[in-house]
């Protein structure tokens, strides 16, 4: 009985310590974000509400980062940022016309310049994970859901033209458009519930997005979500 009490006390102590550490890290992370990130990223909302504001956006909004991203990916990416949006945060700002054809200006789009130390990256990730959208439905995508890959591929590439704007890797072949975020490693980056919510209502997250709300059944939306979430 006495042993049981000790174990109980030890468990609570560990929990409190861990929770306290996370809170301290998140506080540190908030300070780092305030110092290094907010000149480009919006961490308080709201999203741009006008076309002009969208053109002025410097980097993706982060005020719902905790709903959108996976923490493990954030920690890694913050240390070694890579390009996710091949045409920039707003493609219109980076277009040039050559021989009547649009292209993205050479060297116009670069990855986030922040390259954080491991402990900084963890602290920032902890903080970003606290920035959530309370209205997003969670638990929509169950780990038990089965991905029917062939059907999902048809939905992604033919029924709904997702690959027209997003680069993906299907059957070892990389292809797709450049006006939307690169989805080749989307499964490592994105929370499946957020993928579902983004497909369901892109304008909820950004009223000025160019991603349309496609009419589709919940079944198709779940299948597309599983398909994207499996891209690793």
């Amino acid at each position, binding site marked *: 009985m006495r042993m049981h009490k000790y174990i109980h006390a030890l468990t609570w102590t560990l929990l409190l310590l861990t929770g306290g550490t996370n809170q301290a890290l998140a506080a540190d992370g908030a300070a780092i974000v305030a110092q290094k990130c907010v000149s480009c990223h919006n961490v308080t909302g709201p999203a741009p509400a006008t076309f002009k504001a969208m053109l002025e956006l410097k980097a993706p909004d982060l005020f719902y980062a905790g709903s959108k991203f996976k923490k493990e990916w954030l920690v890694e990416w913050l240390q070694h940022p890579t390009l996710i949006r091949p045409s920039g945060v707003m493609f219109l700002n980076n277009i040039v016309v050559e021989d009547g054809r649009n292209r993205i200006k050479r060297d116009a789009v670069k990855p986030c310049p922040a390259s954080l130390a491991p402990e900084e990256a963890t602290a920032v990730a902890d903080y970003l994970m606290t920035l959530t959208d309370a209205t997003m439905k969670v638990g929509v995508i169950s780990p038990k859901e089965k991905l029917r890959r062939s059907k999902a591929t048809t939905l992604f590439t033919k029924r709904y033209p997702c690959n*027209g704007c997003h680069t993906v890797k299907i059957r070892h072949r990389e292809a797709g458009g450049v006006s939307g975020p690169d989805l080749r490693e989307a499964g490592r980056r994105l929370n499946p519930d957020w993928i579902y919510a983004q497909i369901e209502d892109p304008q909820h997250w950004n009223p000025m997005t*160019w991603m349309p709300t496609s009419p589709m059944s919940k079944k198709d939306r779940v299948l597309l979500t599983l398909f994207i979430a499996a891209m690793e």
Partner: protein
Amino acid sequence: MKKSNFIVWVVAMFLAISWGSLAWSAETVETTYQRFCVQCHGTLGNGQGINQTAEALAVEPRNHADPKRMSKLTDQDIKLAITDGGAAVNKSPLMPAFGKTLSTPEIDELVAYLRQLCSCQYSEAAASEPEDDHEDNPEDKHGDENERSD
């Protein structure tokens, strides 16, 4: 200043300010086109947008500046393609449906804007001419591969 003049002045100022903010926040058909159409149809409307030149699209987007091809389409055809997507008019499904994103007046404005881009209207004579290329053909050149199962 007379009281009536003062009231007129206040009302005029209010209207000016309201109109200014409305004009500032309102999206125009040009910005709607830039936001939703340019990525594939291009800044010149000629079908050479960044997704096309990145070779992402199996079917070349419609050249909105081509009066010959655009005059084959009725306004209703164009409206249906924007609202329900390319598949609804037996064209490429790569053209998304915008009926749940844009309002009916916005889609009507886009139809009128496309008529400006091509400087054309629907012509029965043009519509009866045979297609001279495979643009907008619903057959996807990657179709067989896409259908193949893992």
